[in-house]
Protein backbone atom coordinates (compact mmCIF):
# COMPACT_ATOMS: atom_id res chain seq x y z
CA UNK A 1 0.00 0.00 0.00
CA UNK A 2 1.33 3.44 -0.80
CA UNK A 3 -0.70 5.31 1.77
CA UNK A 4 0.70 6.83 4.89
CA UNK A 5 -0.55 6.09 8.36
CA UNK A 6 -0.78 9.06 10.69
CA UNK A 7 -0.26 8.82 14.40
CA UNK A 8 -1.81 9.72 16.76
CA UNK A 9 -5.34 9.65 15.42
CA UNK A 10 -6.24 12.57 17.66
CA UNK A 11 -4.20 15.12 19.57
CA UNK A 12 -5.41 17.82 21.94
CA UNK A 13 -3.03 20.46 23.30
CA UNK A 14 -3.07 23.93 24.80
CA UNK A 15 -2.54 27.00 22.70
CA UNK A 16 1.11 27.91 22.57
CA UNK A 17 2.34 24.34 22.94
CA UNK A 18 4.02 22.42 20.16
CA UNK A 19 2.19 19.69 18.28
CA UNK A 20 3.92 16.70 16.73
CA UNK A 21 2.29 14.29 14.33
CA UNK A 22 3.87 11.24 12.80
CA UNK A 23 3.50 9.42 9.53
CA UNK A 24 4.67 5.95 8.62
CA UNK A 25 4.69 4.34 5.20
CA UNK A 26 5.74 1.04 3.66
CA UNK A 27 7.35 1.64 0.29
CA UNK A 28 10.29 3.63 -1.02
CA UNK A 29 9.22 7.14 -1.88
CA UNK A 30 10.23 10.07 -4.03
CA UNK A 31 8.70 12.68 -1.80
CA UNK A 32 6.18 13.09 0.96
CA UNK A 33 3.59 15.79 1.31
CA UNK A 34 1.59 17.05 4.27
CA UNK A 35 -1.89 18.49 3.97
CA UNK A 36 -4.27 20.22 6.35
CA UNK A 37 -8.04 20.01 6.32
CA UNK A 38 -10.14 22.45 8.27
CA UNK A 39 -13.57 21.25 9.26
CA UNK A 40 -15.91 21.25 6.28
CA UNK A 41 -13.24 22.33 3.82
CA UNK A 42 -10.99 20.76 1.22
CA UNK A 43 -7.41 19.74 1.87
CA UNK A 44 -4.72 22.35 1.62
CA UNK A 45 -1.10 21.59 0.79
CA UNK A 46 1.32 22.50 3.58
CA UNK A 47 4.75 21.27 2.67
CA UNK A 48 6.62 18.83 0.45
CA UNK A 49 9.83 17.07 1.46
CA UNK A 50 11.89 15.12 -1.05
CA UNK A 51 13.45 11.76 -0.31
CA UNK A 52 16.97 13.24 -0.28
CA UNK A 53 15.98 15.85 2.32
CA UNK A 54 15.96 15.21 6.05
CA UNK A 55 14.31 18.34 7.32
CA UNK A 56 12.31 21.21 5.94
CA UNK A 57 10.84 24.33 7.48
CA UNK A 58 7.96 26.55 6.51
CA UNK A 59 7.02 29.23 9.01
CA UNK A 60 5.96 27.44 12.19
CA UNK A 61 6.03 24.07 10.46
CA UNK A 62 8.95 21.69 10.63
CA UNK A 63 8.89 18.42 8.73
CA UNK A 64 11.44 15.65 9.09
CA UNK A 65 11.88 12.58 6.97
CA UNK A 66 13.71 9.38 7.88
CA UNK A 67 13.69 7.13 4.85
CA UNK A 68 15.51 4.35 6.70
CA UNK A 69 12.61 4.15 9.15
CA UNK A 70 10.02 5.02 6.51
CA UNK A 71 8.63 7.75 8.67
CA UNK A 72 8.02 11.47 8.74
CA UNK A 73 6.96 13.92 11.38
CA UNK A 74 5.21 17.27 11.28
CA UNK A 75 5.92 19.69 14.09
CA UNK A 76 3.80 22.79 14.57
CA UNK A 77 5.43 25.19 16.98
CA UNK A 78 3.65 27.73 19.15
CA UNK A 79 0.26 26.38 18.20
CA UNK A 80 -2.73 28.64 17.66
CA UNK A 81 -6.47 27.99 17.73
CA UNK A 82 -6.46 28.33 13.94
CA UNK A 83 -4.24 25.26 13.71
CA UNK A 84 -7.19 23.13 14.79
CA UNK A 85 -7.67 20.82 11.82
CA UNK A 86 -6.96 17.35 10.51
CA UNK A 87 -3.51 16.69 9.10
CA UNK A 88 -2.72 14.13 6.45
CA UNK A 89 0.53 12.81 5.07
CA UNK A 90 0.85 11.58 1.51
CA UNK A 91 3.93 9.55 0.54
CA UNK A 92 4.60 9.65 -3.19
CA UNK A 93 6.29 6.68 -4.83
CA UNK A 94 8.06 6.97 -8.15
CA UNK A 95 5.70 6.70 -11.07
CA UNK A 96 2.67 7.11 -8.87
CA UNK A 97 -0.31 8.55 -10.61
CA UNK A 98 -2.67 8.66 -7.68
CA UNK A 99 -2.52 10.02 -4.18
CA UNK A 100 -3.76 7.81 -1.37
CA UNK A 101 -4.41 9.23 2.06
CA UNK A 102 -4.61 7.75 5.54
CA UNK A 103 -7.19 8.81 8.09
CA UNK A 104 -5.19 11.73 9.34
CA UNK A 105 -4.48 13.21 12.75
CA UNK A 106 -7.20 15.39 14.26
CA UNK A 107 -5.50 18.22 16.07
CA UNK A 108 -7.41 20.34 18.56
CA UNK A 109 -5.85 23.46 20.03
CA UNK A 110 -7.50 24.50 23.27
CA UNK A 111 -7.51 28.20 24.20
Amino acid at each position, binding site marked *: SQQGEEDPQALSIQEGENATMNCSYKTSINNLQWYRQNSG*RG*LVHLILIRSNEREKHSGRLRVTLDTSKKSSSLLITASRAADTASYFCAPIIQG*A*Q*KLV*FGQGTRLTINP
Partner: protein
Amino acid sequence: DAGITQSPRYKITETGRQVTLMCHQTWSHSYMFWYRQDLGHGLRLIYYSAAADITDKGEVPDGYVVSRSKTENFPLTLESATRSQTSVYFCASSEQGLFGNTIYFGEGSWLTVV
Protein backbone atom coordinates in the same frame (compact mmCIF):
# COMPACT_ATOMS: atom_id res chain seq x y z
CA ASP B 1 -8.02 33.06 -10.27
CA ALA B 2 -10.96 30.72 -9.66
CA GLY B 3 -8.86 27.59 -9.12
CA ILE B 4 -10.88 24.45 -8.72
CA THR B 5 -14.62 24.61 -8.20
CA GLN B 6 -17.18 21.97 -7.45
CA SER B 7 -20.94 22.05 -7.97
CA PRO B 8 -23.33 21.57 -6.46
CA ARG B 9 -21.90 22.15 -3.01
CA TYR B 10 -24.90 20.49 -1.37
CA LYS B 11 -27.30 17.98 -2.82
CA ILE B 12 -30.04 15.76 -1.49
CA THR B 13 -31.27 13.05 -3.82
CA GLU B 14 -33.37 9.92 -3.68
CA THR B 15 -32.18 6.37 -3.95
CA GLY B 16 -32.02 5.21 -7.55
CA ARG B 17 -31.63 8.65 -9.08
CA GLN B 18 -28.72 9.65 -11.24
CA VAL B 19 -26.58 12.43 -9.86
CA THR B 20 -23.68 14.27 -11.45
CA LEU B 21 -21.13 16.21 -9.48
CA MET B 22 -19.21 18.74 -11.50
CA CYS B 23 -15.58 19.71 -11.14
CA HIS B 24 -13.90 22.52 -13.05
CA GLN B 25 -10.32 23.76 -12.81
CA THR B 26 -8.90 26.86 -14.42
CA TRP B 27 -5.21 25.90 -14.41
CA SER B 28 -5.21 23.34 -17.27
CA HIS B 29 -3.77 20.77 -14.89
CA SER B 30 -3.24 17.39 -16.47
CA TYR B 31 -4.29 15.28 -13.50
CA MET B 32 -7.65 15.31 -11.81
CA PHE B 33 -8.98 13.16 -8.98
CA TRP B 34 -12.23 12.36 -7.22
CA TYR B 35 -12.21 11.36 -3.56
CA ARG B 36 -14.94 10.61 -1.09
CA GLN B 37 -14.54 11.23 2.61
CA ASP B 38 -16.44 9.32 5.24
CA LEU B 39 -16.07 9.05 8.99
CA GLY B 40 -13.90 6.10 9.83
CA HIS B 41 -12.57 5.73 6.28
CA GLY B 42 -10.71 8.92 5.68
CA LEU B 43 -10.28 9.97 2.06
CA ARG B 44 -10.72 7.27 -0.56
CA LEU B 45 -9.88 7.65 -4.21
CA ILE B 46 -12.78 6.93 -6.56
CA TYR B 47 -11.35 7.73 -10.00
CA TYR B 48 -8.53 9.74 -11.45
CA SER B 49 -7.54 11.06 -14.83
CA ALA B 50 -4.07 11.70 -16.22
CA ALA B 51 -5.27 13.75 -19.19
CA ALA B 52 -8.31 14.35 -21.33
CA ASP B 53 -9.90 11.07 -22.39
CA ILE B 54 -7.72 9.07 -19.97
CA THR B 55 -9.34 7.84 -16.77
CA ASP B 56 -8.59 5.07 -14.32
CA LYS B 57 -10.14 3.47 -11.28
CA GLY B 58 -9.12 4.23 -7.75
CA GLU B 59 -9.93 2.35 -4.55
CA VAL B 60 -13.72 2.56 -4.63
CA PRO B 61 -15.00 3.01 -8.22
CA ASP B 62 -18.11 0.83 -8.08
CA GLY B 63 -21.31 2.75 -8.71
CA TYR B 64 -19.52 5.74 -10.22
CA VAL B 65 -18.77 6.87 -13.74
CA VAL B 66 -16.40 9.60 -14.86
CA SER B 67 -15.52 11.29 -18.10
CA ARG B 68 -12.87 13.79 -19.19
CA SER B 69 -13.72 15.16 -22.60
CA LYS B 70 -12.08 18.50 -21.73
CA THR B 71 -8.96 19.03 -19.67
CA GLU B 72 -10.67 21.46 -17.31
CA ASN B 73 -13.72 19.37 -16.46
CA PHE B 74 -14.00 16.06 -14.63
CA PRO B 75 -17.62 15.20 -13.79
CA LEU B 76 -18.48 12.33 -11.47
CA THR B 77 -21.79 10.54 -12.04
CA LEU B 78 -23.59 8.28 -9.65
CA GLU B 79 -25.64 6.20 -12.07
CA SER B 80 -28.16 4.98 -9.52
CA ALA B 81 -27.54 6.57 -6.14
CA THR B 82 -27.55 4.42 -3.02
CA ARG B 83 -27.59 5.42 0.64
CA SER B 84 -24.03 4.15 0.99
CA GLN B 85 -22.96 6.88 -1.42
CA THR B 86 -23.95 9.56 1.07
CA SER B 87 -20.64 11.28 1.58
CA VAL B 88 -18.54 14.35 1.01
CA TYR B 89 -16.92 14.31 -2.41
CA PHE B 90 -13.71 16.17 -3.16
CA CYS B 91 -12.30 16.90 -6.57
CA ALA B 92 -8.59 17.66 -6.90
CA SER B 93 -6.08 18.48 -9.61
CA SER B 94 -2.33 18.39 -10.12
CA GLU B 95 -0.17 19.94 -12.78
CA GLN B 96 1.80 16.96 -14.03
CA GLY B 97 1.10 14.06 -11.75
CA LEU B 98 2.33 13.68 -8.23
CA PHE B 99 6.09 13.82 -8.35
CA GLY B 100 7.01 17.12 -6.79
CA ASN B 101 3.64 18.63 -7.50
CA THR B 102 1.02 20.00 -5.18
CA ILE B 103 -2.48 18.61 -5.28
CA TYR B 104 -5.16 21.26 -5.18
CA PHE B 105 -8.51 20.38 -3.70
CA GLY B 106 -11.95 21.81 -4.25
CA GLU B 107 -14.19 22.73 -1.36
CA GLY B 108 -16.25 19.58 -1.51
CA SER B 109 -19.74 18.49 -2.49
CA TRP B 110 -21.97 17.22 0.31
CA LEU B 111 -24.26 14.53 -1.05
CA THR B 112 -27.09 12.94 0.90
CA VAL B 113 -28.98 10.02 -0.57
CA VAL B 114 -32.34 9.38 1.09
